[in-house]
């Protein structure tokens, strides 16, 4: 591990100032991803600015019935918050489906959103990887890619500097994407708000960048707008073992029913792309239509028409389709009960 200086700041502005003066420095949240990547030699900061307890650790009410989540709120505490459990069950379920009790106790809301991909070429410094070592190629696209992306990836062959088929591993981010959350960020130039839709990016021609944040921008809070019908929402995660594993495929969904008609719906998919994938094609197909298994399946298939699977992850397409159908059926059954 590279040697580093450990710094604490008096307040968020102080932390931002410290990193503004340290081009190779990084913020330290719970460290459950960053310390691991430093030990692997994947992350090599020369300064760590500890922000684990620096930003708000409170979940506060917003006037519209939504919640403002401080970036320092641990994943475990957020999942246990009764308002989250009652108003946004998909958010609590996404958190509880991730990692382990120990990790959730330490991991922060801000750090969770900025965790890096679990692609095994990214985490092995002896392998080619455009994300870790830009221009070195992509080991996964012709190698082990069972867990990799089927939507929105860049595949120009293993030698291209643009190729990346990695997925974003956060469960929380998928639920927040479905809820149209907004990320509050403090940078050297002041505060700004980044919609979840714009936070994570697709690899495009630069797989090295996971997000649109600039170096030194500090996440201070996440705003989840009020959505009364999110009381009927679900996060469903499919993985290789029942617990303590990353998603192969996941679905975050909320649905508002008028009798047997879909008045409105929110769907985001995890494990499918370099960013949480908002299923707008499926949403448009469902809105105003019948809440039936046939309609759910048709909408899921319409969304997945854009999929470009690799040889070993084609199973994700039918898996995402059936997981989405099951999730919507479950929500509509609960609505009728």
């Amino acid at each position, binding site marked *: 591990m590279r*040697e580093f200086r450990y710094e604490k700041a008096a307040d968020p502005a102080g932390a931002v100032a410290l990193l503004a003066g340290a081009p190779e420095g990084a913020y330290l949240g719970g460290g459950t991803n960053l310390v691991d990547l*430093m030990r692997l030699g994947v992350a090599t900061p020369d300064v760590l600015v500890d922000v684990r307890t620096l930003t708000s650790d409170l979940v506060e009410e917003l006037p519209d019935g939504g919640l403002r989540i401080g970036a320092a709120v641990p994943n475990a505490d957020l999942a246990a918050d009764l308002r989250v459990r009652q108003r946004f069950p998909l958010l609590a379920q996404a958190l509880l489906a991730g990692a382990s009790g120990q990790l959730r106790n330490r991991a922060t809301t801000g750090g969770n959103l900025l965790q890096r991909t679990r692609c095994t070429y990214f985490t092995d410094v002896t392998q080619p990887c455009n994300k870790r070592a830009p221009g070195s190629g992509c080991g996964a696209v012709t190698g082990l890619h069972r867990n990799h992306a089927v939507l929105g990836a860049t595949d120009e062959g293993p030698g291209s500097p643009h190729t990346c088929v990695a997925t974003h591993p956060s469960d929380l981010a998928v639920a927040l994407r479905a809820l149209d959350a907004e990320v509050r960020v403090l940078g050297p130039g002041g505060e700004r708000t980044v919609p979840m839709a714009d936070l994570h990016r697709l690899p495009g021609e630069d797989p090295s960048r996971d997000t649109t944040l600039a170096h030194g921008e500090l996440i201070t809070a996440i705003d989840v707008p009020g959505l009364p019908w999110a009381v009927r929402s679900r996060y469903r995660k499919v993985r290789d073992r029942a617990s303590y594993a990353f998603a192969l495929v996941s679905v975050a969904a909320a649905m508002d029913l008028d009798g047997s008609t879909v008045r409105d719906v929110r769907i985001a998919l995890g494990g499918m792309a370099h960013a949480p994938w908002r299923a707008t094609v499926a949403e448009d197909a469902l809105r105003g239509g019948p809440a039936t298994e046939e309609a759910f399946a048709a909408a899921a298939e319409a969304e997945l028409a854009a999929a470009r699977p690799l040889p070993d992850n084609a199973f994700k397409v039918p898996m995402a389709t059936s997981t989405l159908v099951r999730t919507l059926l479950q929500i509509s059954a609960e609505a009728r009960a």
Partner: protein
Amino acid sequence: MDQQITLQVDGARSALTVDTRTSLLDALRERLGTTSAKKGCDHGQCGACTVLLDGRRVNSCLVLAVTAEDAEVTTSDGLAADGPHALHEAFVDHDAYQCGYCTPGQITSAAGVLAEAAQGWPSAVTEDLAAERTELTDAEIRERMSGNLCRCAAYANIVPAVAEVAAAQGVRA
């Protein structure tokens, strides 16, 4: 880069100088000679290094020692300060180990599970998320203890050991 820190471990305070790269786990084992917490993977994947940090279970391999300065660290040994903890006795009674390597992590993790249940925290298998009370069924115990691997596969005895203490503490019928 060296930094001076004070760690409070199982009730005793120690001042030491550590390289900032040192994990809490290595500081405990290599510097303070407290070998209760074990190193299985060093990547947050096995739970053998679990300790209580201000009463919350965490993986000490992913905690930098410099960040634990103001916290109280409790290992499985520390839980036995006044004689064996109820969890220690239950693990012995139920034969909830074979080689014992994962056991200190299982014990501290189980202590965390009991505290979380007492606060009404839900898990991924909790049916009614809005319920304020937690009932530690076998399925709940399995899910909540999933961050602790046991290569000897003593799971079948770990679950009843934790269940017995949960019942005694009123978080299981």
